[in-house]
């Protein structure tokens, strides 16, 4: 409990981490309160062809898109999709990656090597490409995007957990606890997990940003949720043929992505600085 308080106060003093928190809060608010905050909540489905491609104005704060729908309102509903994808994909990656990393780190020998090589396999091809392949195979849809991202992101968790577990094993307290006869289970849950919680949390925060970017890329390539879903990446792709005149159409969703990912990155950096300064400068830890 005191650790949590410690984290919060230290974080509170880090200005950029605070900015990150604010941005994330804005995203969550936008997503939760979209129906209330939107000026044209029906425009998620509704079309107004006679009002297409209007510049930002009092009636439409961020202009209208190719179907005449309000860009601002669709952006808010797009936030829901963004959060959903991010949370579930990162959550699933965590659930898959952490146990694998623990197993690999705890054991020595070929089993551990095998697990790490399996994670290498998934890292060998750029995540985007693998996600594209999976999304294309299964068909573009929201669940499939989440699946594709989870399947390709878990190795990052596995790697971090593996490295930390190995490092911890050398620590005296672990050796002595094991010598005292504590079961591996007990060891893991009571001693190892709390100590690797920090890198996992940091990784999760950075992972949110990374996953959201990849999800947007998939949406941009047309492999995300189908129309008329107001997914941010897809909206950017739609806007291209109307540039440079309807610049707001492309600028708004892009900025939304930027601020969201920035929020998670800043928070992740701040958490890392607070929770484990040792990690701050390790080059191999990022991604």
């Amino acid at each position: 409990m005191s650790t949590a308080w410690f984290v919060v106060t230290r974080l509170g003093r880090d200005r950029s981490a605070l900015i990150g928190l604010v941005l994330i809060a804005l995203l969550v608010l936008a997503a939760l309160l979209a129906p209330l905050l939107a000026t044209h909540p029906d425009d998620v489905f509704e079309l107004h062809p006679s009002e297409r491609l209007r510049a930002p104005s009092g009636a439409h704060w961020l202009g209208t898109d190719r179907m005449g729908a309000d860009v601002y309102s669709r952006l808010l509903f797009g936030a829901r999709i963004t959060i959903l994808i991010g949370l579930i994909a990162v959550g699933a990656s965590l659930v898959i990656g952490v146990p694998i990393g623990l197993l690999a780190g705890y054991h020595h020998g070929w089993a551990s090597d095998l697990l790490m090589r399996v994670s290498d396999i998934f890292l060998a091809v750029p995540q985007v490409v693998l996600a594209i392949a999976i999304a294309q195979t299964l068909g573009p849809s929201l669940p499939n995007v989440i699946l594709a991202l989870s399947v390709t992101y878990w190795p990052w968790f596995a790697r971090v957990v593996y490295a930390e577990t190995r490092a911890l094993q050398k620590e005296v307290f672990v050796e002595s606890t094991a010598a005292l006869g504590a079961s591996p289970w007990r060891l893991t849950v009571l001693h190892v997990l709390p100590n690797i919680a920090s890198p996992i949390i940091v990784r999760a925060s950075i992972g949110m940003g990374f996953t959201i970017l990849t999800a947007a890329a998939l949406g941009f390539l047309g492999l995300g949720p189908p129309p008329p879903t107001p997914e941010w990446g897809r909206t950017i792709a739609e806007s291209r043929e109307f540039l440079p005149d309807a610049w707001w159409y492309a600028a708004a969703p892009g900025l939304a992505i930027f601020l969201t990912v920035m929020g998670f990155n800043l928070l992740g950096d701040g958490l890392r600085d607070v929770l484990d300064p040792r990690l701050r400068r390790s080059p191999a830890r990022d991604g």
Partner: protein
Amino acid sequence: MRLLALALHRLLWFVPTLLGLLVVTFVISRVVPADPVALVAGETATPAQVEALRRQLGYDRPLPVQFVDYLARLARGDMGESLFTRRPILDDLTHRLPATIELTVVAMLASVLVGIPLGVLSALWRNSLLDHALRVLTVSGLAIAGFWLGIMLQLLFSMRLGWTPLNGRLPGFPPRGITGLYLVDAALTWDWSTFVTALAHLALPAATLAFPALATLVRFTRAGVLDVMQSNFVLYERAMGLPRPLIVWKYILRSALTSTVTQIGLLFGILLAGAVVTEAVFDWPGIGTYAVSSIVRSDYNAVMGFTVWAGVIFIVVNLLVDLALTLVDPRERVS
């Protein structure tokens, strides 16, 4: 000795890892809903003809048999033919590789030549305006969607200002080339107008690709330099009154460079992943667009071929980076 052990250890796992990668890709590529054999047979083929073609291409045999057959041919250097272009995959890949290499190398150069000095300056002038500005840049660099950055750059520099072309490598056909790298070919043949045109076409995609790499480089160079600056021996030398520029040159730059070397692997990963999306935005005829169009067209062999190529490169680069890490900093624990 440790190096050797590590290298051997990795090499031992090289083949199984690659194999695993191939299995995964094989399974994914064969599970596609669209039937590429029917696509190739043509719009008007009857089911009987499609089956005949399937038999001819060997796709009617059980999957494990097909896989083993693929491996056997791979060992002979035969990646098979693209179902669509009817050309050997290897030819397709080599044909498109120069485009991606050129883009990636130019982006890498740009990020290194700009990033390292900025990182050093940022560390030396810590908390200055420049430092703060750069730190904003660094955080942005990893938060901007690459495809969006590319589109915005197009919007500003191509459409509004007209300074650069919109996309592609060159308008139309290139002058007959030697390496396929247009900058190099143009330089070798003294064709400066093509050189300038190719550079103009490279400007925006390379900038787009370089941005996240640049941000990462600045960040880690800065961190590395700060590390060194606070290390004991530098403090000692400063206490001894050694002039600052000398300290900078002697220790900091060198450590910055070594930190870069270890970053190459990471950079490479960022650049390769970014290349796929950047190529899509700029219609760049490289490996990225080849991979995406092969996947979208269910071109089995092309997808496998690309995966083999990407996998080999990745594993090799990873190995080299890990080796370099061990060489450079024995304290860094590597699995």
